[in-house]
């Protein structure tokens, strides 16, 4: 188990170790399900019942191993798993963001594993990192994201407005007003147009002005 700090993996081997242990069981389950499907199609009730019982039994073993592996009671693990998959289906973007917050980065897909299997591996890593099924359940709680104000895509209106204003000035006008500019605003503007202003050199000022002119010209309707 980990110390539970965000971005800290308790055991980096948890994912691969689980994959190695669970993959053969999952394969067995899949084969049984296929047989079941085939027998159902043939309307063979006796074979169907036999295979169905075997499938249920194997699935119980599968869940037991999963829950033991994470030292979580089976019922809690099942609840956790269901909530987790539901949350991923409804809000995949939000779940990715939350998992990235906990794990630092999301685990890679392995081979041709499906999205479902990958999501379960992410659950394992998160469970391992947080060490508590309750916290994982809370993580899968749906929360409505606050809607951004209608029609507003500009993230920093102050900096954008300043850039659009500077873009209408000549270089001389811009340089003349430089002394009165708020350094914090200059920094935000520079960040917005991808200019690095470490020191207020003439080259940096010219670059910022040329980017402001470009922004004004490109956004003119």
């Amino acid at each position, binding site marked *: 188990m980990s110390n539970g700090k965000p971005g800290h993996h308790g055991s980096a081997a948890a994912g691969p170790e689980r994959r190695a242990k669970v993959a053969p069981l999952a394969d067995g389950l899949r084969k049984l399900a296929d047989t079941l499907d085939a027998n159902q199609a043939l309307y063979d009730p006796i074979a169907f019942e036999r295979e169905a019982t075997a499938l249920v039994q194997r699935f119980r073993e599968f869940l037991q191993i999963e829950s033991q592996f994470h030292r979580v009671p089976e019922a809690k693990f099942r609840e956790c798993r269901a909530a987790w998959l539901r949350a991923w289906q409804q809000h995949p*973007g939000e779940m990715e963001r939350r998992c990235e917050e906990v794990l630092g980065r999301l685990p890679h897909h392995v081979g041709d594993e*499906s999205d*479902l299997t990958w999501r379960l591996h992410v659950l394992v890593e998160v469970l391992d990192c947080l060490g508590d099924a309750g916290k994982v359940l809370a993580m899968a709680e749906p929360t409505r994201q606050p809607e951004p104000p209608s029609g*507003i895509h500009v993230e920093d209106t102050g900096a954008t407005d300043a850039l659009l204003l500077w873009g209408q000035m000549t270089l001389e006008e811009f340089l003349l007003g430089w002394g009165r500019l708020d350094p914090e605003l200059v920094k935000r503007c520079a960040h917005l147009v*991808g200019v690095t202003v470490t020191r207020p050199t003439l080259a940096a000022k010219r670059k910022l002005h040329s980017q402001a002119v470009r922004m004004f010209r490109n*956004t003119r309707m």
Partner: protein
Amino acid sequence: MAAKIWAFLNFKGGVGKTTDTVNIAAILAKHPDFRGTRVLVIDQDPQCNATLWFLTRERYHIATERNKSAYHLYEAQMRGSQVPIQDVITPVFRDPQSGGCIDLVGASFDMLEQEEDPSLGGEPAKAATVIQRAIEPVRTAYDYILIDCPPGYSIFTRNALRAAQHVIVPYTADYLALEGIKWIKQLRDRFARGYADPNAVAKIGGVIVNRYRAGFKASDAALAELRVVLDQLAQQSGERIHLFRPFIREATAVTKANNEQQALVDCEPTAVRRDFIRVTHDLVNTFRRHV
């Protein structure tokens, strides 16, 4: 319920119109998150890229020989008659268990000739409603109808604008693609002025950012410009133009899938495949309440 109809349009070429149409259609029909979704793709680009992507060259020739393309819808209009859309549909994918499917009304290189006669030999207003009239009888048979438009303002684009509810604008972070968005807005508004019904022409629904390079300063600067333009457009029209999330990253997996004529959802999981799935979620959720 009647299908939601989206036209993928940008006047700039190479911004990902076909890539977005094909991949979003495939995700809707095949990904478990959208199980059972029925999709009709209409290729309106005479370059036939979406058609070739779905059918490959051999099946494209067979479909053309059997008169299964949008060309025949337009050709019938020129003769003063109408062909049922079912006659030109090619099934691409079927999931018998879930009911999900992709059907295609392909394009044909012959459409290049039709492009030269914007009125299709008759009334220009009627020529712009060929697709709209054709899909009306099958609107309830699909959940989504996706129209891949050519990079220009031809009779095929005007048909897409009349048939669709929303225009989805694929965009790459550069100045020319931004100009493309401004042109769409201007031409869309000019086209809509000819109709009394405000819903006669598709509204601009939102922008999908393709080939995004995180941390690349020029991309971020271009996106800052895109945001300014979207806000200005929203102010002008009073309607919100959505910026779909996440931005779809630049990735070789997309080119690889394109070269193999596969949709990303059929390929091994990658980050860009996940981007597409999430963007599809955003699209579906954004227009969920729109009838």
